[in-house]
């Protein structure tokens, strides 16, 4: 079983190395902008969060696969499959998430809202830290114990985002409810600013032109819960992000996140690879005689 889990983790990370970097989207890992997947496109991505908690706790490696589909120009749906491997412990599958994002306004505005809804079925061993909410959690358990504790969570986000003067500025307010335990509603936030390094497209196809790179800065953290809203005993990170679109439909992203508070992982490293399959929905429809 352990070998199978290790194989899964290896496959996920290999796929990640072969596949992610949000094609032409702002350079963010945690923050969502109002950019949705283009209609009928499928984006396959793999990301990994690597952390070293310190204080004698072992380092971990938490990969996940994303399948993001643009159902329409105003609706994007995404499935996540995630795993985790801890040094000196074990590797395991930690669960899945299904998220949907909707644009309630059909025109571009100065500030564009997007509504986000997610259902997650994970266990306590999950460490991908796709978002930070609530208060700091207590000391890490071993995987064998953590995997037995299941969490069925519902999460919503209000995403506000603006593209202005070649910058993307985004802010997310997060509310999460664990349906398996009485933890109240937990809150969190993510803020981001991102810009491409060049604003004109060059005439030739090039991999290393400045236009293929984007840089961003994110800040994210918890805001407590209904049991105690605020910054007390919460963790916050500041994370520069660099994205490189190395082909028409593939990109990689890297981000070291530095902890701003006394608690939490001192540093998190995030790596991701994204590959976009253009017209996926049309191709599937043709396969079944439609489209």
């Amino acid at each position, binding site marked *: 079983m352990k070998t199978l889990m290790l194989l899964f983790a290896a496959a996920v990370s290999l796929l990640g190395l072969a596949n992610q970097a949000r094609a032409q989207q702002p350079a963010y890992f945690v923050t969502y902008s109002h950019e949705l997947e283009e209609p009928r496109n499928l984006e396959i991505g793999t990301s990994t969060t690597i952390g070293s908690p310190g204080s004698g706790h072992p380092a971990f490696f938490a990969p996940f696969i994303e399948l993001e589909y643009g*159902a329409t120009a105003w609706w994007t749906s995404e499935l996540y499959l995630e795993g985790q491997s801890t040094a000196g412990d074990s590797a395991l599958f930690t669960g899945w998430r299904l998220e949907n994002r909707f*644009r309630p306004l059909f025109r571009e505005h100065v500030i564009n809202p997007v509504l986000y809804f997610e259902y997650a079925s994970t266990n306590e061993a999950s460490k991908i830290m796709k978002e930070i909410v609530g208060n700091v959690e207590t000391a890490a358990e071993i995987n064998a114990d953590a995997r037995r504790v299941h969490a069925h969570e519902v999460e919503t986000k209000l995403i506000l985002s603006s593209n202005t003067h070649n910058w993307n500025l985004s802010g997310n307010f997060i509310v999460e409810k664990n349906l398996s335990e009485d933890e109240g509603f937990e809150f969190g936030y993510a803020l981001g600013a991102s810009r491409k390094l060049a*604003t*004109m*497209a060059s005439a030739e196809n090039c991999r290393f032109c400045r236009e293929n790179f984007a840089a961003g800065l994110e800040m994210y953290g918890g805001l407590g819960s209904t049991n105690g809203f605020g910054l007390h005993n919460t963790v916050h990170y500041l994370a520069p992000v660099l994205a490189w679109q190395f082909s028409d439909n593939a990109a990689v992203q890297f981000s070291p996140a530095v902890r701003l508070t006394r608690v939490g992982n001192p540093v998190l490293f995030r790596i991701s690879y994204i590959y976009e399959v253009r017209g996926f929905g049309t191709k599937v429809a043709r396969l079944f005689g439609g489209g």
Partner: protein
Amino acid sequence: MKRSAWFIAVALFAYMTFAQEATQKHPKWQAPPDAAAKKNPVGDKPEVVAGGKKLFMRHCAECHNEDGSGLQDAANLQLPEVQKQTDGALFWKITTGNVKNGMPPFSRLSDDERWQIVSFLRTLKPASQ
């Protein structure tokens, strides 16, 4: 568990069918006068148009076809109805999109990149010409 999976699958299928229906042409989609009056600041030098072509192939060709003739419900960009529109109007349409009718906004591209696409659109001609 099996029943929930079936329910989700059917609901998704119904939603996608509805979404497909919603993707239709919208002839009354007009740029506001001040947006339509804007001039293209990047011009039509060959390197600008070549950059615009690269962006078009990456972002637009999937729906509008590589020669701009349009696929499925997307507009034929070679048609006089499109070509007679001002540069500013085309720039506005690329920027804001027509989300309800299937076209996403491309405000994530820089201003210069969107103008480059407009410059490339001016080179699109019907195959017979």
